[in-house]
């Protein structure tokens, strides 16, 4: 079965990249390079080391922002899920954060925090945190009450109930939120580089657009998507290992 799903993945990739190559060759748009041209640009960038330098810049706000969002987001989410009052107080902030058009808020962030790392981290957090908080709180609220009762009846303390029941029970949905949050964080990191100061991958994208070096531009975009996909897959694997019985669709 593994080989079958692997085959389907390859097929799906071949279809998309084939369509890309086809569209590039038939000249749908002068700004669309072919897939192979883009890959060649990517290889060139890799050999020259440009891409690594770019990622060194891009990953800094991304990693910092995602880590902050994950830790604070899950913490706040658990708290919101446990306390109705806190839910009232906090949830609206994150719902607004999620709904607000971030690009329009960036000038405000620049005025408040300048054009450095802080603003970029903020952009990543604004993108990543709401979905993590909201998913976590929903998951915590939906912990089956009979399992919580079970822990209480076997003399579990409030702390036991939270650590041994609520968190593991909520973890699949927390992880789903984390995955969404991380992918939103990737969007945020690139957005920050395009809107605040061009550094890293965002710099490659905007610079090669200005010089009409479209293969490089697409190569940079492709690389960030690739990185995001790899990272999300790793996260999924971690989840599978951590919570073995949880992903089997068993509802008590």
């Amino acid at each position, binding site marked *: 079965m593994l080989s079958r799903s692997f085959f389907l993945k390859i097929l799906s990739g071949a279809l998309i990249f084939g369509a890309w190559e086809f569209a590039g060759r038939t000249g749908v748009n002068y700004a669309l390079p072919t897939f192979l041209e883009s890959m060649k640009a990517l290889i060139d960038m890799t050999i020259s080391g440009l891409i690594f330098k770019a990622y060194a810049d891009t990953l800094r706000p991304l990693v910092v922002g995602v880590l902050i969002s994950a830790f604070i987001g899950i913490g706040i989410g658990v708290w919101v899920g446990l306390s109705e009052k806190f839910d009232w107080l906090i949830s609206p902030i994150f719902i607004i954060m999620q709904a607000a058009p971030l690009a329009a808020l960036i000038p405000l962030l620049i005025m408040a925090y300048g054009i450095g790392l802080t603003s970029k981290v903020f952009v990543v957090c604004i993108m990543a945190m709401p979905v993590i908080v909201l998913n976590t709180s929903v998951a915590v609220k939906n912990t*089956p009450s*009979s*399992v919580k*009762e*079970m*822990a*209480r*009846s*076997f*003399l*579990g303390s409030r702390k*036991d109930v939270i650590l*041994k*029941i609520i968190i*593991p*029970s909520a*973890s699949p949905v927390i992880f789903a939120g984390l995955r969404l949050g991380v992918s939103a964080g990737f969007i945020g990191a690139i957005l920050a580089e395009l809107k605040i100061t061009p550094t890293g991958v965002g710099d490659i994208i905007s610079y090669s657009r200005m010089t009409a070096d479209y293969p490089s531009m697409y190569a940079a975009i492709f690389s960030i998507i690739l990185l995001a996909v790899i990272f999300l897959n790793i996260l999924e694997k971690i989840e599978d290992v951590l*919570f*073995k*019985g*949880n992903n*089997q*669709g*068993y*509802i*008590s």
Partner: protein
Amino acid sequence: MSNDQVENAVTVKNVYKNYGDVEALRDLSLEFPKGQLTSLLGPSGCGKTTLLKIIAGLLPATQGEVLVNGQQVNKPGPDRAFVFQDFALMPWASVIRNVAFGLELRGVNKSERESIAIKYIKDVGLTGFEHSYPHELSGGMRQRVGLARALSVDSPVLLMDEPFSAVDEQTRRKFQEDLLNLVKNENKTFIFVTHSIEEAVYVSDQVALLLPRPSRVSEIIKPSSFKNKDINSIRKDSEYLDTVERIWKSLRSYVE
């Protein structure tokens, strides 16, 4: 056997329970003799699960008291263990961790609690499934895990909330037979909630018939003559059949 000489493991005295304006239990008193199985039987909405959860200490009574071995209780304690209708297993934990969970919460160290768990997993007939996860088990096997978990903490009182209602009929009959043996062999007091008349009469030393609106104990029935008979002949016993019939007559007016 005179009732006065039997010591009570659990005594419920004048318990009231209100949910807002809804009166779930009104002035309910009931005694649960030690070493026996008492069923709480009644139609839905008669408050039998509410009563069981009050005894478990999971729900506070609005008024009245619950005594376990003479001590008043108002929260869960080591003297009572609970078997849940929907099993309440942790899907992320293996059978052995689920069974040992009560001991884990009591701070028993890992090797000790696992060796105890292995014994009870064997007792309920799940040897070989120690490292399976709940989703890999059938409904009946899941409830065996729930039962093993309750037995492993070795509480003198076992509270069972419709434990067999979510398993299929064949498994349920097997469970009922196993339960009779358990009552005979373990020196424990069982409080058993059910809505099945046959099940209540079959497994119980004492059936408390609860009626709704307002909830009260309408009758206590102590089937006796077939208790010492062979398990296989109970369902044909005339007292068994008469008792089932009598309970049904009392209950039928409450069933719309």
